[in-house]
């Protein structure tokens, strides 16, 4: 007997840790990974709700989220590769050529 709220809290924690990763990590790939962590947190919430509501839909949503994550990963990593080719760095803080100085 696990209360729904436990699952939701876990999902929120994971989501927030993802945010933290985005905010604090220094290299692009980890930042991207943090986004995946956030999505995982959301997925957990979907599944938990799906379970609580006795619906299939939530599971399907998670499926779609994964699909999206896959597409995003493909493009995102391609972008990262393009960036690295241009700049030869993976440090997020290095990528601030644009911006008001």
């Amino acid at each position, binding site marked *: 007997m696990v209360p729904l709220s436990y699952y939701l809290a876990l999902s929120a924690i994971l*989501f927030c840790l993802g945010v933290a990763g985005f905010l604090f990590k220094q290299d692009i790939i980890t930042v991207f990974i943090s986004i995946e962590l956030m999505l995982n947190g959301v997925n957990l919430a*979907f599944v938990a709700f799906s379970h609580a509501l006795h619906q299939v839909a939530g599971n399907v949503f998670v499926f779609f989220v994964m699909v999206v994550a896959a597409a995003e990963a493909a*493009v*995102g990593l391609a972008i990262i590769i393009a960036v690295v080719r*241009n700049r030869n760095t993976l440090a997020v803080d290095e990528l601030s050529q644009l911006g008001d100085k």
Partner: protein
Amino acid sequence: MNLVPTEFYLRILPEIVLSVFALLIMVIAGPARHGSRARVNGWLAFIGCLIALAAVTVQAAHPGDAFSSMFRVDDFTIFLHVVLIAATAVIVLLAMDYLPQQGLERGEFYALLLFATVGMGFMVGSVELIMIFIGLEISSIATYVLCGYRRHNSHSTEASLKYFLLGSFATAFFLYGIALLYGASGTTNLYQMANQGLHISPDGISHAGLVLAAAGLMFIGLGFKVSAAPFQMWTPDVYEGAPALVTGFMSAGPKAAAFAVALRVFYVALQDSSATWFWMIWAAAILSMCLGNLGALRQTNIKRMLAYSSIAQAGYVLVAFAALGAQGASAVLFYLAAYVAMNIGAFAVISHWAHREERYVELKDYAGLGFRFPWLGFCLSIFLFSLIGVPLTGGFFGKLYVFQAALHAHLIGLTVIALLNSALAAYYYLRVMVYLYMRPQEQPIECAPFTAPLWLAVASCLGVTFWLGIFPTRALDFAVKSAQQLLH
């Protein structure tokens, strides 16, 4: 298992047409990659857009829901389809001028544009959150790629990465909002949420708080996409770094689509809690206008300046958004239409003037342009005037409608701030014209020959800008009807 009824496909016909043409381009993009034959891709894409526009009429002839009520064809859908596909058509035309000039001509550009439009089509037509999310992702991913299209340029790739990372970050919030809303209501269909009322979830417990949190989270995602403050920080950098034409596209299409989604979500699904989220919109509107306009004041790069301007423009749309009701929605729609026309028009001129590798995007590069190339200068001026909100242009009538709606909703303070902002904004738009006409040029910059697609594109933007400004009745009626259908 029943066959899917034909109307369902007719209802998404524009998307199908666009996808088909995008695939076609992908297929022939290989053989026709370079040289004069590359132009075939562009014309193909343009024809695709025209056929898609024709398909919109087919779509319009079959109003109703499709695919388990995931997609809805109503006037709202039609209105935005017209705007978005027309915008893409213009961008395609411009690309035929821009890409060869930049040495970037490859068919994939057009395919990505069309796919992005497909995504936006689904965003505006869907009434179900997951579908909306997927549409959003399609258009976003395509746009991320387009931003980095000049892949050997560090600015372009940096912009792409910034947009991608921050965009995904914001999308995660949006998705979390969807999850919470799903949990609170047991459904992801917006109209179903509206019908059952969000106060009572299937378990019989009120989840009003959760709904509000979901509203906030979704606004973060959507606010990011429309570059509303305080989620606007990415805009200047990405707009500056992306190829000028892509910037034009980004500032128009995805923004309009995201606003459409916001309308559906907030006006339809979340209408019961409007008393709460209203203030969020209200604050975001003020912040967007002020931050956008103030930030633009001292910019020297015209793309960056227009980025800040687009933040401010989002603020004006949010003013209409805050007006609520059919009037607010129709004002949003009308303003978006006008904004798309004038902003793409402005970027058309800018992207043509940018020259190879976008060397000339600083304001000083525009010195004396107005008299050396009178038509180019004239067009840019008209678009800027429209952005300022000078009468006889679509921008003016859009603003008028926005402010009228806001005043109608007794949002006096908001309207006054918006009015003052639009006066403040005049400064930096005018500054461009100061360079165009009032400063002597420092170096003679030659202008690439004006190609037919460019003229066609600019002329249509000009035409629409004036049409919306002088004879707005038809567009206005359409917007009103769309808004009414949205709410029913």
